[in-house]
């Protein structure tokens, strides 16, 4: 007997609410895990020194930034040595930029798969953001070494270390939702994203302290959600603490808006993806 319990109707009107989207993702969490697992496996199989890259990339970037901006241009970072100043921000920056990059191309690069099988499409940009967590964890070890080297004692603030990470993950995923959906139709996104991310680096207090930004430009740091997150991360790593929570609050609010908005946009557009890609 056919039971009516599992009846599903497919029609033009079958759009889904945000709640359905979330529960569908939850129901497919195993597949999400497999996507992340696959990415990591493949990367490690195709590279000669595998995990070392996760450490080398930020380490070398830190060295170059220190040479160019710290020593060359002489950017002043107060009492904090420039290398650890830049590294504490760079860590998040690399995680965020890699996530956005990979998430935004995740739909197009899986076009073949999308036209052959159904699964919640959102898993692709999501998994792209989860994959980077491993690199983040590995690169964090350098930070610990540097804290010893520069004699920076960990404070209780460090307990909040996951908060900026979570926010940058949500921001990366949120932007990833928007960009990957748009890129299915307009491949221009491919060219715009790397370029914009490069610009964003200069609009974020990664290589310079926020105090360096003059009055008429400071609005950029206010509306850039990444600025609040990076400043917060730095404050808890360096143990200077946080007295003014407003910037982080504004960042968090923007992040949530971008994330939820991205989710709504993506799930609205999701059903068309296989047709336009």
């Amino acid at each position, binding site marked *: 007997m056919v039971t009516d319990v599992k009846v599903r109707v497919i029609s*033009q009107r079958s759009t889904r609410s945000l709640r359905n989207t979330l529960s569908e993702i939850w129901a497919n969490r195993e*597949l999400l895990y*497999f996507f992340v697992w696959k990415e990591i496996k493949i990367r490690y199989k195709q590279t000669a020194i595998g995990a070392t890259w996760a450490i080398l990339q930020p380490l070398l970037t830190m060295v170059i930034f220190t040479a160019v901006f710290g020593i060359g241009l002489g950017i002043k970072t107060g009492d904090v040595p420039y290398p650890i100043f830049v590294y504490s921000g760079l860590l998040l920056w690399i995680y965020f930029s890699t996530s956005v990059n990979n998430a935004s191309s995740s739909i197009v690069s899986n076009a073949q798969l999308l036209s052959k099988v159904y699964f919640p499409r959102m898993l692709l940009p999501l998994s792209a953001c989860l994959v980077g967590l491993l690199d983040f964890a590995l690169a964090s070890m350098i930070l610990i070494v540097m804290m010893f080297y520069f004699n920076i004692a960990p404070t209780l603030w460090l307990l909040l270390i996951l908060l900026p990470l979570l926010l940058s993950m949500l921001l990366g995923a949120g932007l990833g939702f928007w960009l990957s959906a748009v890129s299915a139709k307009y491949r221009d996104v491919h060219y715009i994203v790397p370029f914009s991310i490069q610009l964003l680096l200069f609009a974020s207090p990664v290589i310079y302290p926020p105090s360096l930004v003059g009055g008429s430009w400071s609005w950029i740091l206010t509306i850039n959600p990444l600025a609040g997150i990076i400043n917060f991360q730095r404050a808890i790593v360096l143990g200077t603490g946080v007295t003014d929570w407003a910037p982080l609050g504004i960042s968090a609010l923007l992040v949530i808006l971008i994330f939820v908005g991205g989710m709504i946009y993506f799930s609205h557009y999701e059903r068309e993806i296989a047709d336009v890609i």
Partner: protein
Amino acid sequence: MGVPIIEVRNLSKHYFIGHKGAWGSYKRLSEIIVDYARHPVESIRGARSKKEEIWALKDVSFNVDKGEVIGLIGRNGAGKTTVLKIMSKITYPTAGEIILRGRVGSLLEVGTGFHPELTGRENIYMSGAILGMRKVEIERNFEDIVKFAEVEKFLDTPVKRYSSGMYVRLAFAVAAHLEPEILLVDEVLAVGDAQFQKKCLGKIKDVSEGGRTVLFVSHNMAAIEGLCEKTIWLEQGSMKMYADSHDVVAEYLRMASFSKENNLDSPTISRKGSGQARFTWLQLMNQHGAPVESITEGEPFRLRLNLRVEKPIEMKIIGVTFRDKVGRNILTTVHYDSLDLEQLDRGSYIFSVHIEPNPFLRGNLNIGLGCYGTNFSEYDVIDDAYNFNITPNLDSKDALRWRPGVVNIPAKWELIEENH
């Protein structure tokens, strides 16, 4: 009979294809902006739509009862795959609806989710998960899958080192162990050797005898007749016939013998290139020039193809590429092997390509066509122009044996030493 497990009601699906269909379906942002800038009002009102509507499906309705195995036949572009894609939620209908009373599993290609770098074991998990199996289900079926695929020894070898036979076996084995109430299968059996095909057909039969419902797309009429009680025949998006398989297949073959030219001029064909020259049709023929739909192993064959040139072109290459089911290029032949032809005036050109000897071993082949100018500028490139099977030659002593590989060339064997 009770309530049907699948109800398809007035299902329609259209696509929009830009007039420059050759660009593919995605647009460049710059094109859109230029369009808006030039014709702001019309663009916003949508009146200046340079798009063409293509109905992939038009008002298709049918019911399937639980436990039935239904065949789905029709020429390339008739809408068979679109039906399966809508059922598996990959794409959505423009109008109409489908009511499904059971979990759907679909097998639209061999090796969905496979990654060449991953090992056999890893791919079983990955592909299983993508096809909708839970981890516990995969673990429960793991032994069976490995046994069915006969890859025990190579479980920890990356599948890029597999032979195409092993690859296909493993891929099918994973999919065959899906446990949905409704199984959708799209032309996946035409791969692998005869013995394996038999095994796959047997598996599908088991699935249906277990009370599950199967929708089966194939160009292989023998398989359709052997497996399906009833068959749906789609033609240009509409349902032409839905009846007992033997009747449908007989009628289909009768009609097919009238019009064997495979039309490439249709907007449903995906192509790229400037369009200054376009392939308009392609015809598969046996060595005597009679139109056919499949070729026997070892039998020479011909392709006849028509190229329409819109403006005079500097033509460097016309190429025909044969690909196997997993998309590997097996053989490419180009016109300058025997023709000296560089300037083509406006007009229509018919080429005949003789594949003689025929090196292909049994399996499914896809034909890609390309016409290129200087520096590989593309006039017209169609990756998926035609699909046909090379069938085993029952008269040869090889018929029941499997010769691993995709092609066969005569090699000379000599016994040069013998000691007793």
